[in-house]
């Protein structure tokens, strides 16, 4: 019997330090002589900076320096954008605005002081004289001819236009039997709002000309490279360390101005400089998610089979590009067909500048928008043709035998069985019973809504050829002389639990106790290379690299063992702390092989001492996890309040390495997806003031907002990586948003409501019901 570790519900290795309060996030670190930095940020959405008076700030006792944009010119590079799109306009994005601000919260002045209390006192004393400029907040208005320009050096506010076309539109347009369904969808702006805000400590040592940066980031290696470019410090002497990261959800998949300014300040002052983002800063100046307007046209046959889909995406990019800003909406176009083999597709994506914070990757990043569009579309089709939403989906699914499947979008789906997840979730939710209950309740004037969504997402980002900055991942496994095993990954998990799942992979492969494996990540001097954690890639790409490295390591260990046992290396099995022949007749303890490798007294021919192997895994394709969700809601007919009654989901993320972690990822994703559907909305007023600037106005869901999530899985493995895993970090978010909206719209069917935009706040629902009553 082989020791079974992979696939088991195993408690996390990460937790002991976290539950004792002994783990260290950036703000928990203190360096000798450390200074504290704070920022003065624009209160205008668009203005010239006419003058800055910092004399009073400088005179505050304990203030060490005051930095302005001009001080950085030629000495600190701009905030980088890695997205490469044809014809993309890339505006200059200095770390401190030198002469013009373009969104509320844009940093203008940095104060460096002895401690944070003094820094904030001084920040209050900086006087900035602004010359207000015209503001554009609405992306559609920004496209108008006479719109104010966010960047006057460009002729218009269009950052890029991308087109995606597949199939034969002539056929669709000439087929008069097709029904055309149109709908506009708004995918509102969201705040990622990880519980830990951003933070950075930069420590420059002039003797060595070396820069060490501790940052709450998802991409330590990319950050290191970018900081080297920005600051001019030799990359070999740049080091980024990611301590504990308190959540990110895409918002820390970035290189931010503050990381640059802190590095610059430390270099200038020769002391460590710390900056910790406040929550208001986090709401204003950490990237936002979503913010798309989608105009959809669906051409459908009378039996509910969709023949063509056309969509115009207006993506509000905000004022500047952050690392991946323009790339995110292009993912929406890629995934717009969802899990339906629709033969004809046409998508135009227009990226637009506005006087707002940049949008960028937020959990799901482009795919929740796509899923929302297509899943709402399926319900609109069902509504139009008076079919059950489940039936419409069934009629448009490809068969499991069709995979691998190239869609009209040109995307190659790996494996799937959409029928299976749908069937399972319908059963779990008692779907047909629910429909009957709904009928009964409607007669009593009660509004039960049942919402369905069947989704597919594009994960395991991704093949390097299709990624802005490489999509491979690095993994290294070393058996230490003590026979303990250290795993190094270039990914940078921050709550997902890969210290556990990677240890499971390695322990299972080497046949050693799980406790003997330690996973390292997030230090560019310890882990040689890396891309990072995002796009549900950590296990599917990073795990695959670890798996590959272990295979190499096993080969090497087997040669040492075989040499001693005098058998063929290929015959050996790793299990139970030893290496043994298939028939079990000969074996050698794991530790003895390690000893042989390190003491190196007698080496097998051509084998070097030591037990360290590494691999850079390049994924041949993305993976395509999928699932089916059912939400059950009750709408209060008097007030429009929504009560979420039940939630069922069946997710297929490929092979499951640790069900506990998968459940956790799904739950968290659901909370965020449901949050978008019902509550979350990051709102700028028409003057570009962000009016949801605190957690008192921006709703992060609370424990009592949710029912018990009934989650389960199917397992359809992918051939894209040797582990067969697809990724699960974003599944819940992607599947749940349309399920909830479909449920609420379904509840409002008696009122003739066809569509409502998110978030489904009670007032919106009340107005829809009221309007229906007025028309009746």
């Amino acid at each position: 019997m082989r020791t079974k570790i992979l696939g088991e519900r195993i408690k996390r290795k990460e937790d002991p330090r976290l539950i004792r309060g002994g783990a260290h996030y950036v703000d928990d670190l203190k360096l000798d002589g450390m200074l504290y930095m704070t920022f003065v940020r624009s209160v205008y959405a668009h203005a010239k900076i006419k003058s800055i008076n910092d004399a009073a700030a400088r005179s505050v006792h304990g203030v060490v320096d005051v930095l302005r944009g001009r001080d950085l010119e030629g000495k600190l590079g701009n905030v980088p954008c890695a997205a490469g799109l044809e014809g993309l306009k890339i505006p200059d994005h200095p770390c401190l605005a030198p002469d013009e601000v373009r969104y509320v919260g844009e940093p203008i002045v940095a104060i460096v002081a002895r401690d944070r209390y003094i820094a904030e006192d001084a920040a209050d004393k900086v006087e900035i004289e602004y010359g207000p400029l015209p503001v554009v907040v609405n992306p559609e208005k920004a496209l108008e001819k006479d719109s104010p320009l966010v960047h006057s050096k460009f002729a218009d506010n269009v950052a890029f236009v991308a087109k995606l076309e597949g199939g034969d539109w002539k056929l669709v347009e000439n087929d008069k039997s097709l029904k055309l369904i149109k709908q506009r969808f708004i995918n509102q702006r969201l705040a990622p709002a990880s519980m830990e805000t951003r933070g950075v400590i930069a420590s420059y040592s002039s003797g060595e000309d070396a820069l060490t940066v501790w940052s709450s980031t998802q991409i330590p290696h990319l950050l290191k490279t970018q900081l080297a470019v920005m600051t001019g410090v030799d990359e070999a002497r740049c080091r980024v360390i990611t301590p504990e990261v308190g959540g990110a959800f895409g918002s820390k998949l970035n290189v931010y101005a503050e990381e640059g300014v802190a590095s610059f300040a430390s270099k200038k002052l020769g002391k460590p400089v710390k900056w910790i983002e406040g929550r208001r800063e986090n709401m204003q100046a950490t990237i936002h998610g979503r913010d798309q307007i989608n105009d959809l046209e669906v051409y459908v046959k009378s039996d509910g089979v969709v023949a063509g889909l056309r969509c115009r995406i207006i993506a509000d990019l905000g004022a500047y590009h952050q690392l991946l800003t323009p790339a995110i909406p292009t993912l929406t176009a890629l995934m717009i067909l969802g899990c339906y083999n629709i033969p004809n597709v046409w998508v135009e994506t227009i990226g637009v500048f506005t006087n707002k914070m940049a949008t960028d990757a937020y959990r799901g990043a482009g795919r929740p928008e796509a899923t929302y569009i297509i899943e709402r579309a399926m319900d609109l089709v069902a509504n139009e043709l008076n079919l059950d939403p489940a039936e419409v989906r069934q009629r448009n699914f490809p068969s499991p035998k069709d995979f691998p499947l190239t869609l009209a979008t040109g995307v190659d789906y790996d494996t799937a069985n959409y029928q299976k997840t749908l069937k399972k979730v319908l059963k779990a939710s008692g779907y047909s019973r629910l429909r009957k209950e709904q009928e009964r309740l409607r007669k009593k004037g009660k509004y039960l809504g049942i919402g369905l969504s069947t989704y597919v997402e594009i994960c395991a980002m991704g093949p390097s050829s299709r990624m802005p900055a490489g999509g491979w991942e690095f993994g290294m496994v070393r058996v230490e002389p003590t026979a303990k095993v250290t795993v190094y990954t270039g990914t940078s998990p921050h709550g997902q639990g890969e210290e556990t799942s990677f240890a499971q992979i390695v322990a299972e492969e080497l046949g050693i106790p799980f406790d003997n494996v330690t996973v390292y990540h997030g230090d560019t001097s310890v882990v040689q290379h890396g891309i990072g954690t995002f796009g549900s890639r950590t296990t599917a790409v990073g795990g695959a690299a670890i798996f590959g490295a272990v295979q190499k390591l096993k080969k090497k260990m087997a040669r040492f063992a075989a040499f001693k046992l005098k058998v063929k290396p290929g015959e050996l099995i790793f299990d139970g702390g030893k290496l043994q022949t298939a028939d079990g007749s000969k074996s050698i303890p794991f530790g003895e092989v390690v000893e042989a490798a390190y003491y190196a007294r007698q080496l097998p021919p051509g084998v070097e001492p030591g037990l360290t192997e590494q691999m850079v895994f390049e994924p041949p394709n993305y993976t395509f996890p999928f699932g089916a969700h059912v939400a059950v809601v009750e709408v209060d007919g008097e007030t429009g309040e929504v009560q979420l009654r039940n939630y069922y989901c069946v997710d297929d993320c490929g092979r499951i390495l640790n069900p506990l972690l998968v459940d956790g990822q799904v739950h968290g994703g659901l909370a965020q997806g449901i949050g978008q559907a019902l509550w979350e909305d990051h709102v700028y007023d028409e003057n570009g003031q962000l009016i949801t600037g605190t957690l008192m106005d921006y709703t992060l869901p609370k424990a009592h907002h949710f029912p018990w999530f009934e989650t389960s899985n199917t397992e359809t493995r992918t051939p894209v990586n040797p582990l067969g895993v697809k990724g699960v970090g974003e599944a819940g978010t992607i599947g749940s948003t349309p399920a909830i909206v479909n449920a609420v719209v379904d509840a409002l069917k008696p009122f003739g409501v066809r569509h409502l935009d998110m978030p489904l706040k009670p007032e919106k629902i009340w107005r829809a019901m009221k309007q229906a009553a007025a028309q009746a």
Partner: protein
Amino acid sequence: MKIRVKINGAWREDDVAPRLLLVHYLREVAGLTGTHIGCETSICGACTVLVGGQAVKSCTMFAVQADGAEITTIEGLAKDGQLHPLQQGFWEEHGLQCGFCTPGMILSAHQLLARNPHPTREEIRKGLEGNLCRCTGYQHIVKAVEYAAKASGK
């Protein structure tokens, strides 16, 4: 101002400015960084500690107000290296992901169980209304508290 505070069983004395927030006192003066800061408006609960046995948001209190008080932070929960049942529960039930809200969450749960040793799931959710978690969707946290309730009830 001079204050005297008993933190996790040990008295200490410090001279603090009146405006020093209790959370900064704990983190930066007493060096107990397990208590976190997640918002500026007393909403998120990441900074929750027990003062005189009651769960409070230490970002909404000045250190000088704690003069003479007994404070328990996350660092003081495990006794003799033994995890508190709540800590055990959070571990067993995967009640945390990034871990940032966890100390505050555990201390709120601590008070919940002190007042109601056998809460229903709904009571647990209501009892944690002052603590935000962006990672877990709360379900495993509810299970963690149930675990601790059971473990303590033995």
